[in-house]
């Protein structure tokens, strides 16, 4: 019961929302790069919000199922195919024993997420199923998936979901190659000159190839500090933007270190972190300053959006309704 990994893809790992509570020992939180797409994948299957998924990076895996279940793929468009036929993203898909899912290469975005209705059989380590590649703990044997691996599922029963035909969302979230990313300035923005701040907020930055699960370095104009950007090392939040002496901003992502010694000019608003995680090399980013209150309001707005998604997939779908309407009309016609 589960699936065989025919091809592992470039960097396919088991992830959930990560490992909190151990940062004071230096263990980073880790977890999915794009929390929004991750949540939508689980939402489409009525999974628990923090259920572990496969995170695929740039080139996806090929999986052969050894039992039937329902899956959903979200995030960047990886052009998935089931038994060589294209299957849609953001849609619950029924897979049978023997079916082969081929997750291709990213047409848009950088990562995609595969959620499973029968859950992955992965042990919980320090409160999470996430793979910590640096420490080699969690996930599947502490590493990325390789050709020939076999992952079992945890439960057997979920082969049916109510309103199955409604479980699709018309989302194309990562089509733009230029994005505006909202940031909360600080905590060390006072270490930058007014010219540096102006450069940061009014320039276009290019995503460099220095991009991994720890963070992404940007190319662009020099962000000037007043007298250097070394600080006494302090704690780092997800999405913090460091500017070392080379003057190029680095956005810290899922596998970021817990503490560091470069001044942080700002921190990306949580709702915009998926946009950053899904950027491609040479994509452009502009930064826009918002207040912490505005950023927290945006989180609430996104929660409402998730609730709407939930409502939407828990209604009979139009096609089904239309068939019923047609049937009613036919009935009237003949009665």
């Amino acid at each position, binding site marked *: 019961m589960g699936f065989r990994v025919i091809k592992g893809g470039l960097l396919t790992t088991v992830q959930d929302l990560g490992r909190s509570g151990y940062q004071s020992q230096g263990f980073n939180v880790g977890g999915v790069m794009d929390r929004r797409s991750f949540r939508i994948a689980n939402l489409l299957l009525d999974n628990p919000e923090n259920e572990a998924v496969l995170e695929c990076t740039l080139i996806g895996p090929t999986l052969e199922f050894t039992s039937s279940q329902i899956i959903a793929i979200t995030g960047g468009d990886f052009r998935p195919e089931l038994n060589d036929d294209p299957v849609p993203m953001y849609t619950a898909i029924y897979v049978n024993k023997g079916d082969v899912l081929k997750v291709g290469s990213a047409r848009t975005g950088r990562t995609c997420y595969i959620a499973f209705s029968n859950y992955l059989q992965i042990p919980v380590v320090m409160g999470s199923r996430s793979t910590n590649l*640096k420490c080699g703990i969690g996930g599947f044997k502490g590493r990325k998936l390789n050709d020939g691996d076999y992952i079992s599922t945890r439960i057997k029963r979920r082969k049916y979901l109510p309103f199955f035909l409604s479980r699709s969302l018309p989302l194309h979230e990562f089509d733009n190659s230029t994005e505006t990313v909202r940031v909360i300035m600080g905590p060390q923005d006072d270490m930058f000159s007014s010219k540096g701040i102006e450069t940061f907020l009014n320039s276009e930055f290019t995503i460099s190839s220095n991009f991994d699960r720890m963070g992404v370095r940007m190319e662009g104009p020099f962000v000037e500090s007043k007298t250097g950007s*070394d600080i006494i090392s302090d704690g780092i939040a997800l999405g913090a933007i460091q500017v070392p002496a080379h003057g190029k901003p680095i956005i810290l992502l899922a596998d970021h270190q817990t503490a560091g010694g470069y001044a942080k000019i700002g921190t990306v608003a949580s709702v915009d972190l998926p946009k950053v995680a899904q950027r491609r090399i040479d994509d452009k980013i502009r930064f826009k300053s918002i207040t912490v209150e505005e950023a927290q309001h945006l989180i*609430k707005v996104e929660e409402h959006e998730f609730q709407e998604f939930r409502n939407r997939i828990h209604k009979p779908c139009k096609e089904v309704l239309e068939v019923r309407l047609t049937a009613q009309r036919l009935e009237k016609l003949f009665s």
Partner: protein
Amino acid sequence: MQNIKIVPEGDSSILVVFDQTICPEVNQKIAAAAKLIKAQQISGIIDMIPTYCSLLINYNPLVMSYEALRERVESIVRMESRTEGGRKKVWEIPVVYGGVYGPDLETIAEHAGLSQEEVIKIHSSQDYLIYMLGFLPGFTYLGGLDERIHTPRLAAPRVKIPAGSVGIGGSQTGIYPMDSPGGWQLMGMTPVKTYDASREVPILVEAGDYIRFVPVSEEEYLSIKKEVEAGTYKVNVEEG
């Protein structure tokens, strides 16, 4: 009343900033504040990262707003707290300095206007308090580095620094517990594993302990490395 500033770091963390100086007193205040906050079990707080002179608190803004948490934390950290003194525990870490093991020792010496031997002597003649663990599992941030050998971090961080590297970053010194990118100037290498996931206790040292660097020759380094790999090496610990 102490100087405390509370600022947001994004929409899901707040940073409690104490006096920006590396000293045992400030560090103990932070440890005490973290303990007090933990004891209050404030709903919405997810994790805390105490560092040299600030405390980062991760929280869920859907449970508690920035302003509400800020007020709550402010009232707690302004409370006077006592810290108890403990026994001093010193870990003796063997280090081979310079050459291929410490490619930046020359830079450090040049910056300080000293000879490499003098830099080694200064670096190894002191017990360093472990102020915090962070950056990587088991990465020790040590305080008390002699001002004469303070050296700025590299302008562009290295992509890979090997495990066991001993370096200087600004006014700080420490050991890299595993291969990692980083911006510190590298002065030497220890064969001791400060982090080992396969060991019963993966992280050797604790915040509050001390570290003493003991210079060793390349031959000694290699022989200790063999013992470490065989699992027979025991780090010398001085308690008092």
